[in-house]
Each structure stands twice: as structure tokens, then as C-alpha cells.
């Protein structure tokens, strides 16, 4: 008799969960190959440039770390929010708020020694991100307004606000371009390995991931956050103050996202521009999801996304394909991983 297979609802074994990232990459490769072939390149060669070539040189590796710095921060910000059941889609706007604070402090902290100045920049960016997260958080807790909508809309407010600043009061008086004046040297993130671009912000990113991990898994606040994220009704029954916990979560998340704005202004661009973020806030959502809302996983995913982002430039340079293939790969990877998280709940079983 012909063997017959049936899909049954039962969780996949643990080893499969561990294999998900690898499998997701393989499936993503197969899907995106189609686009790479349409773009006129050899998929294997393209993937060599995507995933391998950045890691073959010191310069490449450092560049991967540079690219992953803002993602470590937005990834950590989104992870702590999502793990606590607060769907903060606004990391992008909070990043811009942090960037505005950094651009302002960066011209105001005249004569402050660099360690102090950098610290003030970081604190300022954190507060700015918190403030940008404040309105949706209040609306959520007091009036139960869906934070997915409000945090998302606040992103556009932030973008237009920055645009207004750059085309108005902050327009560079020297070049007359829509960019803020260059920040003072003492407010810049120190370079870790000069002359490479890698800067102190990377350390901040790693620290943010570690801190989020510590909060979530080792503190009372973190346990309360997770209980709200995983079972709000039960958490409330057990006496957790759900609204207050969400409020604190929203502010921490916004603050961490604000730090990403600081590191980009003070570590890479040295002034505020319209395009300070090519969607790092949204990529943070991808990183958090790929990491299955585990901070360490999100950190690893951020590094991986940094690799793809660096690799996509290498692909485009070497094979002449559009560099936004990197975005295509990122997005496909997200969808495939999400699908696999779903499939994890099913098992294929043989029946006679």
C-alpha cells in the first residue's frame, strides 16, 4: 500500500526549532535566486558576495559591525516591547527623535570633555526617544488606543518634523544643504579601531542587548513584563499592574530606539540628515522577530542583517545588480522565518 502522509498539530522536536534559522536561509536562498537570475547574476556567486565575502577581510567584518550597530539598538528596543505585549512599531520615529537630540546637543556641548559629552548625548537621545514614545503609551494605557497605529503614525510625524527642521532653522549655513551643522568633535563617538568607521556605538548596542536580556530574564520588572506579554489576563489576576508595566516598557523601548539615532549622528554622519535611517526602526522589528523575541537571538539577527546589508553593496559592486536586492533578501527571510515559526506547531506523520 502506498504510504500516506498527514499533517497533525503537534509541536516539532527541539532540534528542529534550533535548525529554523539555517533552514530559513536555505529556503530564502531558493526563493530569492529567482530574482537574482532575473537581475542577470549567478545566485551562488551573488550569495557568496552576500554572506561570505564581507567576512573574508578585516575591513569587511568591521563594516558589518558598523551596519549592525543601529540594528542592535532598534532590535533590542523592539524585543523588549514585543516580549511585553506592547507592539511598538515606532522605533523608526523614536530613532529620529534621538537623532534630533544628538544633532542639537552635538552643537551645544562646547568645551565639555569627550567622555562626559558622549554620555550626555546618549542620555539626551534616550530621553528624546522616551518622549517620542510617550504619547502613544499614554493613549494605550489610559484610553486603550491601539499602539500599532499610533506608534506607526508617530514615525511619519518624526520624519516630517526632521524635514521641517532641516529645510528651516537647521539648514546648514555653509553649504545651504538640508542638513544640520556638523557636530563638535568632542561629542563624536570615539572610533574603536581607527581609521575604520567602527565606533563606540557598537559597544552601546551590545550593552543594550545585554541589558534587555538582563531585565527580561533576571529582574522582577522583567518577569512582570513577560507575564503581561504572554498572558495579560492571568497577569492582571495575579496582581501585575498591566497598564503601568506596559507604560514602563514603552518608555524603555523608545529610549533604546532613541540611542540608535545618537549613534548614527555621532558615530557615522556627524550631522542630521533626512535619510539618517534607511528604515532601521523597521529592520529592528525583523531582527526581533528573527530572534523569536529573545534579546540574544535578536542581537544575533542584527549582526546577520548587518552582514546582508554590507553584502548587498558588495553584490551590487561586483555583479552590477541593484543593491536593494539586499532588502528583498531581508524581507523574504522575515516571511520565511515567520512561516517556519508557524510550521513548528505541526508534524508530518506517516499513516497506513
Amino acid at each position, binding site marked *: 500500500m502506498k504510504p500516506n502522509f498527514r499533517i497533525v498539530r503537534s509541536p516539532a522536536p527541539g532540534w528542529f526549532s534550533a535548525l529554523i534559522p539555517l533552514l530559513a536561509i536555505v529556503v530564502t536562498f531558493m526563493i530569492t535566486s529567482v530574482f537574482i537570475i532575473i537581475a542577470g547574476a549567478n545566485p551562488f556567486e551573488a550569495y557568496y558576495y552576500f554572506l561570505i565575502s564581507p567576512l573574508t577581510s578585516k575591513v569587511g567584518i568591521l563594516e558589518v559591525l558598523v551596519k549592525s550597530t543601529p540594528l542592535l539598538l532598534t532590535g533590542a528596543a523592539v524585543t523588549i516591547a514585543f516580549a511585553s505585549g506592547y507592539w511598538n512599531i515606532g522605533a523608526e520615529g523614536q530613532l529620529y527623535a534621538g537623532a534630533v537630540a544628538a544633532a542639537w546637543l552635538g552643537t551645544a556641548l562646547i568645551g565639555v570633555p569627550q567622555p562626559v559629552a558622549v554620555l550626555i548625548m546618549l542620555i539626551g537621545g534616550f530621553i528624546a526617544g522616551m518622549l517620542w514614545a510617550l504619547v502613544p503609551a499614554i493613549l494605550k494605557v489610559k484610553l486603550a488606543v491601539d499602539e500599532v497605529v499610533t506608534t506607526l503614525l508617530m514615525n511619519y510625524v518624526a520624519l516630517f518634523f526632521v524635514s521641517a527642521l532641516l529645510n528651516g532653522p537647521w539648514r546648514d549655513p555653509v553649504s545651504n544643504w538640508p542638513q544640520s551643522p556638523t557636530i563638535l568633535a568632542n561629542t563624536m563617538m570615539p572610533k574603536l579601531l581607527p581609521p575604520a568607521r567602527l565606533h563606540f556605538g557598537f559597544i552601546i548596542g551590545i550593552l543594550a542587548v545585554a541589558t534587555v536580556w538582563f531585565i527580561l530574564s533576571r529582574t*522582577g520588572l522583567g518577569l512582570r513584563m513577560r*507575564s503581561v506579554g504572554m498572558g495579560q489576563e*492571568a497577569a492582571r489576576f495575579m496582581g501585575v499592574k498591566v497598564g503601568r508595566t506596559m507604560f514602563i516598557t514603552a518608555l524603555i523601548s523608545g529610549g533604546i530606539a532613541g540611542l540608535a539615532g545618537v549613534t548614527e549622528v555621532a558615530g557615522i554622519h556627524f550631522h542630521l540628515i533626512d535619510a539618517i535611517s534607511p528604515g532601521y526602526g523597521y529592520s529592528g522589528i525583523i531582527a526581533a522577530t528573527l530572534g523569536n523575541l529573545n534579546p540574544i537571538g535578536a542581537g544575533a539577527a542584527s549582526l546577520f542583517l548587518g552582514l546582508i546589508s554590507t553584502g548587498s553593496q558588495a553584490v551590487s559592486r561586483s555583479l552590477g545588480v541593484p543593491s536593494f536586492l539586499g532588502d528583498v533578501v531581508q524581507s523574504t527571510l522575515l516571511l520565511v522565518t515567520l512561516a517556519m515559526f508557524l510550521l513548528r506547531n505541526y508534524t508530518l506523520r506517516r499513516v497506513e
Partner: protein
Amino acid sequence: MDAVQMVGITKQFGPLTANNKVDFELKKGEVHALLGENGAGKTTLMRILYGLYKPDFGEIRVNGKPVQINSPKDAIDNGIGMVSQHFTLVLPLTVAENVVLGFNPGMTLDPKQVNKTVEEAAKKFGIDVHPTALVRHLSVGERQRVEILKALYRNISVLILDEPTAVLVPQEVDMLFATLNRLRESGLSVIFISHKLYEVMTISDRITVLRDGKCIGTVNKKDTNERALARMMVGRDTFGVQRDSEPCSGKPLLKVQNISAMDKKGLLALKDVSLEVCEGEILGVAGVSGNGQAELASVLSGTLKPESGKVMLGDLEITHLDPASISKAGVGRIPEDRHAGVVGEMTVAENLALERLDDFLKNGMLDRKKIKDHAEAMIKEYQIKATPSIQTRKLSGGNMQKVILARALFTQPHMIIASQPTRGLDIGATEYVRHKLIEQRERGAAVLLISEDLEEVRSLSDRIAVIYEGRIVGILPCSDATEELLGLLMSGAREMANEA
């Protein structure tokens, strides 16, 4: 020849064997009870017969002929109908429309004709329903009759009823049994799934007992008794919970005064409710599901703010306290829905610590050793089959309930609010929970037991309050609370109850 024969039915769900080589025979014109604890495999076996599951092994014969039943449609074609615990009626449609839904030949529907045929069918089977009534206006008992008529209308000869009495008040149970007796006389075969012994002994001709997925045996009612059936069901003698029934002599601890509260839909669910629970007393709250019990428990647990009224715990007013403060004030709470009482994705240890988290923190940091030690102690004391680090959702219902029990009781609360504490548990776990509640009473705690299980309320309570449509319609000492009287009160028949 048997109406239905199931031979060697085996069904596995993952590692769990729900049915293990089960044989089952149904004679024509008999009411055959399928008896067993929760999880014994009764419903699985009947879902196989009704085509909802496919057996891994085994054969089904209808009127002696082997048949393949792959879907409920196949089952109906073979004359088998089923009424499940959760009704599948379309609420805004009329009774007649529901009955013919999916069984109406052709594309058009003539309402007059439909009403007439359904009325004739109702008359023929002796089922008392009004074809033109909207289903959403009907009581649970009436809806069940519609479900039965719906099955009969499809010309079936075998009717499966899955725990039909679970949702009914005693008077409705009597009506159901009267209906079943009429159907039996007209030659229909009925399979009656239940875990209630006295019902089985009342209505059935023969009884098949399942335990752990295996068929323990089939007996004639006249050759057996409740005790023998209980032994077959659990594999050992069960002993009812014993307790002394002295009247309460303690002072009132919980005083609920004129509480009114809204439900989630914004309708008044509690209307001017007042009651007192004394120290060393169990006050049972009996009532049919959905008469305000859930809201009463929520108000007392701090998860629902009442519109008016006052709740006093001794001299402390707890009306507007949040759940954490109520818990700290010495109230142990067992929630109605245990899945809303623990966070399934979190570990047993985390769930045991969360309610009193401040006691398990060192400078805001989790004291992981203390949390783990506490969990180990609770697991031992309450005989929970679990480890501290296992995800709580992986536990069985009984063990999950023990986690909640441990969390509610380890602080030695003065007051315990237990809402449906044994719902869905098997006999072993049920007995355990009931013993624990009695233990609290002996210790001098006041216990408010909200339950839809009349047997439970009657066997545990010192006094019984009956709730009907959000009002307390009577509070009586347990000794006066006969099942008939409670049933009358629970169904809102206040005058009749007063006469009785």
C-alpha cells in the same frame, strides 16, 4: 443484529492513545451510556463514529455491514447523528431554519412549508419547540432540544449525545430524560456520554465503561449499581468527601453588601447582591452558568470594579482594591478559568512566584534560588506532577489547578474565593481539590465556593446561596437544600420554591 458495532477501535494523538482496541455495541432501541472520567476516550470514540476523527485501526459496522465513515455526512447517511457539548446553532435564525439548514432539498426555501414540516417533525418525535422562535431567545435546554430535533430530522436511527446534561438544570434534565424515553420507545438507539453515575443509572439500559482509552466492560443497568460503576470507572473504590456538618459559629469575615456590577457587554450582571461568609465556613454559591457567578468572583478577586455596593473583609474595605492588594489582605483566589489564572508560557516556578513577587526579589532582581526552592516545596506539598522549570501550559488540567491551589493557599489566607475549582478535572484531582477546601475550612478560613456542580456545592457547603439572573434568590442551610429545591431556585421559580 446490532445497530452499531465498533470493533478494535484504536486512535492515537501523538504519544497519547485515546482509544485502545475499544469494542462497542449498540442494540436497536436502547439507551446505552458511555461512562468514564474526563480523558477516558468517550468523546473520541463517538467522534470517530460520527466521522470527525478517523480511527488508526478498527472497524465500524452499521446494521451488520462494514462501513467507512469519513465525515459527519457519511455518518448521517448511515443514520447516525450527534449532538455535541457545544451547540452548532445559528443564533439569529429561527428554530425551523436551523433544523433544515444544510438539509433542504433544492435552491429555494419556502418559510411556511419549512415551518410546517418542522412542526410536524417536532410533533412526531414529541419534542416541544416552536418552529418560528428565534434560537437566540431560547434557553440552553430548549436549544438542546433544537439540536436533537435537527439530528432526528435527518432520518437518523442512532443519536449520540455528548454530555447532554452538563449545561442543564435538574428540571431540564428530567425533560431531556422524558424525551429520550419517548425516542427509545419509538425504536431509536441513543448513546449517552456521561461521567455522572446517577444519571447513567436513571436513563440507560446498558452501560459501557471506558478507562484510559480502554474498554473496561459493558453491563446491564439492572445487574449493577453506582458503586460498582465507580469502581470500573476509576479502577478503585472512591469515597465521597467526608466532613462534619456543624453549623457555622464563627464571626462573619467577608461581607458583600448590595453589590451591583456590569458584565463585559455592559449589561447589569450582578443586582444588589449581599451575602456573608463566616470564619470556618464554606458558603456555596449554586446557579446555572452565566447568572452572574463569573462577575461575582471577579469583583471579589479585584479584577472587576462594581457599580455600587461594598465588600468588607473583616474591618477592611476591599471594594476598590487591585488584585495585588486583595491578595495581600489575605484573600486566596482560585479563578474560574484556570488558563486565565496562570501564564501558560511561563514556568511553574514563575507562576508560583508572580502573585507575591515582592517576596521573591532582592533589590528588584529575581531571587532565583528562592523561587526554585519555593516551587519545589509547593510541588512536593501539593503533589503536582511537574518540575519548577517546565512551561505551565504543558501540565494537565488537574496539575495546573494544583499550581493555582498552591499559589492561593500557601500564604494561609483568611478568605478563599474558589470559582468552579473542579471544573473539567477527573475524579482524583476533584477529590484532592475538595479535600483542600475542607482543610481550609477546618483551619478556620472562610471559603466562598462558586460552582455549577450541585453535587459539589451540596457535599461541601455549610450554607448554600443560589444565584439567578444576578440576584441571590435564596440562602439556606445545606441540610434544607434538597436538589429539587435548589433546582427550582436556580431556574428562577421563586414562588414555587417558597411553597416547597
